[in-house]
């Protein structure tokens, strides 16, 4: 049993969270499973503990805190800016080893000043480790999906591909597979004449008509989901993609971008050099990156000791920009953090609510030799 699991250690953690100015929040252990599966995808199903209520509602033991904290924020009808601190157990299925993990963290929801909230999150995470005497020797890595998206947009890749690459970002194997596939022109599908002719002629109205007819015959006209416009857009995009020769140069540039590593204090310059060297307009993304770097530095973090890795991200579509990780020299991740501006709308918010947060894997700190 990890020493951080003792009552007195938990009290210490609560004190640290309070010292960082976070408001204490408790969320239920047992939770509806849908919000987790909807946001993270079905793959999560294998890794969480599912149960069912008597009325058939799918429930799970919380696998993490961010989603419950956000739901709590929305459910309380809270407006404006709040910073929630939490500590408790999360549950994940693993083939070997334990299934319960002690986590603590801070979720900062509703702060309109993105760079300063990002900076405070990273600084808080480092302070938290420091308070547990576990910051010594750690390695901080930072990534930014917004910069990656700016590169993809700047390269003028077809929209469908931009989306696919953007989703693959953060998972290097998936991303490399997508890049390989992009290098090969997609073969055009075999189409019946009533569909092929308007598609070849780029006659969108006629194509939509023909597709509507097909959907009606199949009884799918009012079934919800994809409609004729949807299918027509993507089909026309495929005809475009088949006509555009794959640009080997653009793909090489993207791979070059993914290889960028720099200390955070020099990263904005590295990005500027990359942009001008490849004639890409990514001024806005770089300005945002530089503003955040300045805020991180102002928050007291030594940015020379933070590594920017252009390929670092999380393959979850609610992470929108900043992601970071603090690991031991051996690579054991102690803290994961990031900005999730898309999450609260996915969970039901009517308009965009910004959010950024981090979680500390407390069990790993105990086992990595810090002072519990």
């Amino acid at each position, binding site marked *: 049993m990890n020493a951080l699991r003792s009552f007195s250690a938990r009290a210490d953690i609560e004190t640290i969270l309070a010292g960082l100015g976070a408001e204490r929040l408790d969320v239920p252990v047992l939770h509806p499973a849908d919000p987790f599966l909807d946001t993270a995808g079905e793959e999560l199903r294998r890794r969480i503990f599912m149960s069912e209520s008597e009325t058939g509602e799918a429930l799970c033991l919380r696998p993490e805190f961010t989603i419950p904290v956000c739901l709590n924020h929305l459910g309380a009808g809270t407006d404006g800016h709040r910073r929630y601190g939490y500590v408790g157990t999360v549950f994940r299925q693993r083939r070997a080893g334990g299934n319960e993990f002690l986590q603590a963290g801070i979720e900062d929801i509703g702060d309109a000043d993105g760079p300063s909230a990002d900076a405070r999150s990273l600084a808080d995470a480092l302070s938290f480790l420091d308070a547990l005497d576990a910051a010594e020797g750690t390695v901080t890595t930072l990534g930014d999906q917004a910069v990656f998206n700016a590169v993809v947009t700047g390269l003028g890749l077809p929209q469908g591909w931009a*989306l696919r690459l953007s989703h693959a970002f953060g998972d290097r194997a998936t991303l490399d597979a997508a890049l390989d596939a992009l290098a090969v022109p997609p073969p055009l599908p075999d189409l019946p004449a009533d569909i092929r002719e308007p598609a070849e002629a780029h006659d969108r109205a006629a194509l939509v008509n023909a597709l509507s007819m097909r959907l009606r015959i199949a009884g*799918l006209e009012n079934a919800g*989901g*994809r409609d004729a416009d949807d299918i027509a857009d993507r089909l026309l995009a495929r005809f475009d993609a088949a006509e555009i020769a794959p640009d080997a140069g653009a793909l090489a540039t993207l791979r070059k971008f993914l290889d960028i590593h720099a200390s955070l204090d020099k990263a904005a310059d590295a990005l500027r050099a990359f942009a001008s060297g490849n004639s890409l307009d990514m001024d806005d993304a770089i300005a945002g990156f530089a503003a955040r770097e300045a805020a991180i530095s102002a928050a007291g973090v030594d940015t020379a000791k933070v590594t920017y890795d252009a390929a670092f991200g999380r393959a979850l579509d609610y992470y929108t920009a900043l992601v970071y990780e603090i690991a031991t020299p051996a690579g054991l991740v102690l803290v994961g953090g990031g900005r999730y501006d898309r999450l609260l709308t996915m969970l039901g918010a009517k308009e965009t609510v910004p959010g950024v947060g981090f979680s500390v894997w407390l069990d790993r700190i105990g086992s990595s030799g810090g002072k519990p």
Partner: protein
Amino acid sequence: MSATVTIAIPSKGRLKEEALKRMDAAGYAVEPPRDARTYRAAVASHPHVEVAFLSASEIARELGKGSIDLGVTGEDLVREGLPDSENRVIRLAQLGFGHADVVVAVPEAWFDVDTMADLGLVAADFRHRHERRLRIATKYWRLTQQHFSQTHGIQLYRIIESLGATEGAPAAGQADVIVDITSTGSTLRANHLKVLKDGVILRSQACLFAPVSGDDGSNPAAAELAAALGA
């Protein structure tokens, strides 16, 4: 140690008939039980062999538990019903009947979708366009997950559990695409669905399986029966 061998055979339908025929042809004619309601039968030529009639999906579970020596059932039921089946059961023989493919099928009118990669693109911005995830109706959630998530890196979808008439789910508005079994494809065509080019998840048929723990050669009678059935 008793040398009794228990082989489980599906308790009804075509799988049962075909399995009994194969036992017969292998020289292990199964005596019909005196009472048609019992679920155990004997083999006159081999008194140490006991036949248990179980439901096809139950056979998968019993194989997983190791409570039977041999079992004849559809491979789809083993791969779906038994977690980590690769390490828990051995497929000794494909028996050549009960063919059914587990496939990913989408509406025929999705002319822009031929492959899993195309479907991945549709899934990627489905939420953005329709304010929900792409829905897949299936009773094969394990196989679906393996094919979508592990093989093709597609994460953004939801599984809608469907225990029957799955091919009707798209028209009923319950799901966008389906994962189901098909043998001739005629039901899919009748429902205006098409199989993706790389959408065959498993080419299933009736197979002879043994639990990993049981097939260590320690039971020569079981090995003999398996060999007679083509293992």
